[in-house]
């Protein structure tokens, strides 16, 4: 029977079991232990770009989404040092884009906002860049608001790997890196994106939005209004609306 016992690593002093081949992040989430993350999505290959899931293993800082779990690892996650680092990363994301939560349709179902609340981000701390990022409203049913892009590449991965369309890509380098659409005109209307595509539903922030349905789910009844992200991410919270009422035109896919 001894051979059936799962291997374990320790996270902040607690044992976390894992299946061989699982990453630290996957094992932690499966065991109900939240590790903040943005570019990770359970349906896609880990990417390791946002670095929010950074942990310290045996004294080295690594991205937990791309690091395989090993028997006996000592993992530090919610230590003051790592949480400070994560808080700074989130603040960087806020100042690099134009994130105006009060009038953003994604408010309440936005992962960036929810993670910021979880980490106790009270202010931007750094000077905002206020980049100029014109929105693309050319598509009849979809609006792209690049102001909120955090370069997680989930839409790129979904469009390429699931939809087989390669609608999205990144362009530029360093601080000038930005999301583009693959069309000679540069306009979303000239791509094959359709509202049913997987790429429509993976954006953790408010870049890719279905048109003409903004604010139909009241503030206060949205995903992270109901349950904090550390419960949602580990599957402890599934109910969308506390009231049990459907939204006016059926369930919204925003932030799904």
């Amino acid at each position, binding site marked *: 029977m001894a051979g059936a016992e799962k291997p374990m690593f320790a996270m902040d002093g607690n044992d976390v079991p894992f299946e061989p081949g699982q990453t630290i992040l996957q094992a932690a989430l499966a065991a109900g232990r939240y590790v903040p993350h943005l570019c990770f999505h359970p349906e896609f290959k880990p990417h390791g770009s946002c670095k929010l899931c950074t942990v310290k293993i045996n004294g080295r800082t690594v991205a937990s989404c791309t690091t395989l779990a090993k028997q006996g690892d000592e993992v530090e996650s919610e230590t003051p040092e790592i949480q400070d680092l994560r808080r700074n990363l989130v603040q960087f994301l806020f100042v690099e884009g134009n994130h105006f939560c009060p009038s953003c349709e994604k408010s309440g179902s936005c992962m960036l906002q929810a993670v910021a609340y979880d980490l106790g981000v009270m202010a931007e701390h750094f000077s905002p860049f206020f980049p100029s990022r014109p929105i693309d409203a050319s598509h009849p049913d979809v609006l792209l608001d690049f102001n909120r892009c955090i370069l997680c590449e989930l839409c790129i991965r979904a469009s390429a790997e699931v939809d087989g369309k390669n609608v999205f890509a990144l362009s530029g380098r360093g601080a000038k890196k930005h999301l583009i659409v693959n069309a000679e005109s540069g306009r979303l209307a000239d791509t094959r994106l359709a509202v049913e595509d997987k790429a429509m539903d993976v954006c953790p922030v408010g870049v890719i939005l279905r048109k003409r349905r903004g604010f139909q789910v009241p503030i206060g*009844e949205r995903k992270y209004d109901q349950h904090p992200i550390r419960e949602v991410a580990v599957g402890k919270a599934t109910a969308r609306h506390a009231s049990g009422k459907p939204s006016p035109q059926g369930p919204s896919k925003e932030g799904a």
Partner: protein
Amino acid sequence: MSSSLEKADDPTKLRRVVIDPVSRVEGHGKVTILLDEAGKVHQVRLHIVEFRGFERFIQGRPYWEVPVMVQRLCGICPVSHHLCASKALDLVVGARRLTETAEKVRRLMHYGQMLQSHALHFFHLASPDLLFGFGSDLAKRNIVGVAAAFPELAKQGIMLRKYGQEVIRITAGKRVHGTGAIPGGVNKQVTAAERDELLAPLPQVLEWARGAVKLVADLHLSHRAEYDRFGTVPSSFLSLVGEGGKLDLYDGTLRARDHAGQILFDGVDPQDYRSQIEENVRSWSYMKFPFIGSLGPDVGWYRVGPLARIQNCDFIDTPLAEEARQQFRAAFAVPENGLVHAPLAYHWARIIELLHSAEVIERLLHDDALLGDELLAKGPRAKSGVGIIEAPRGTLIHHYEVNDQDLVTECNLIVSTTHNNQAMNETIREVARQYLDGKEPTEGLLNHVEVAIRAYDPCLSCATHALGKMPLTLEFVDPSGALVERLVRDGESL
């Protein structure tokens, strides 16, 4: 309708007294007064020195964001902007008629807003002046002083406002900056439990509102000689009027009367507001000066708000407020169609509206259609929409043009305080003539200028005065421009 104190003949030889900032304009406003050596007043101006820029940065945004974004214009009357933008965009999404439930939920939200805002203004901001006197002891002339001298009254003010805020919370989701209205309707159903929660305190709310009407009437009538004359200047009046000429604060058509009470225009569809109202600018203020086009920029200025509405309508369709309106007219003995012009009568009119709002809330809560579940309507798209609503401080106009890609291409906002811009300037000029001419300005005398502005309840209201900390700087400058003396009041002393 004299503007004679707008511009002094030779400002270089005059000393300048500045009230900066004026308390109660949310954001920044200041008053400048130019006096000669004998203390004679030569020029008085209310300057609005801030620039918000909403009209510009809404351009290029998707239309469904607008009702949520524009309410950030204000922390006191966000519901008015939220609903006004929604009304304009209803037309863009083709919802020329809302569902019965959506219209009633929105009306409930709006009258809740009216009630809380009017209670805030009268009890927290204006009552210290009215109860203690315009030049009374500064240390007491604030809401804390009112709470000490009239504890029951202060409590009623706070509880009335709280009730209005609860109405807003239930209809909009939050007490401040909710999201209840969306283009085409509302996003939130009112439940029977929520309705019952609002019904329970209503008898008390109505009783307090009736008491407030009596109080404000008594205050006016017991200072009749001063109140009727204080800063009084005749003007035209503009407001929405509902079906059959009734008072309607949510919807209707535009009506204007001239200073003698004669109808200038009536039944004007909100979509055609530009056929009657024009705007111009002056170099010394960031606030535009609207005027009635047919009268021209010099004499075409007008007033909006409670005093305009109570006198523009033919009747009020709730019994207690109609009775109060009749008493108001009888007290002033105004002839048929005649108008009361005293700025301080705004307070009385405002409290009649507070009572009316409580009555309308009661009526809506007893209406089963309020609890319906058909929340959204739509129809053929349009490229533009104008929404007009009577906000607590007066007529509010939102005008949007939206392109085929769903983005706003043009936005024009005329907010209540803007309509009253010239009126406030004329009123403080009159107050300066009445109280400041030939006298050495003191804090008490300068407060008279603020009392006059306060009567209009400008939307830039801030709470500083209410807390007894109205910051005020007086600068005395000799004819060469050199500073002779500077007095700064930080809320403790002058």
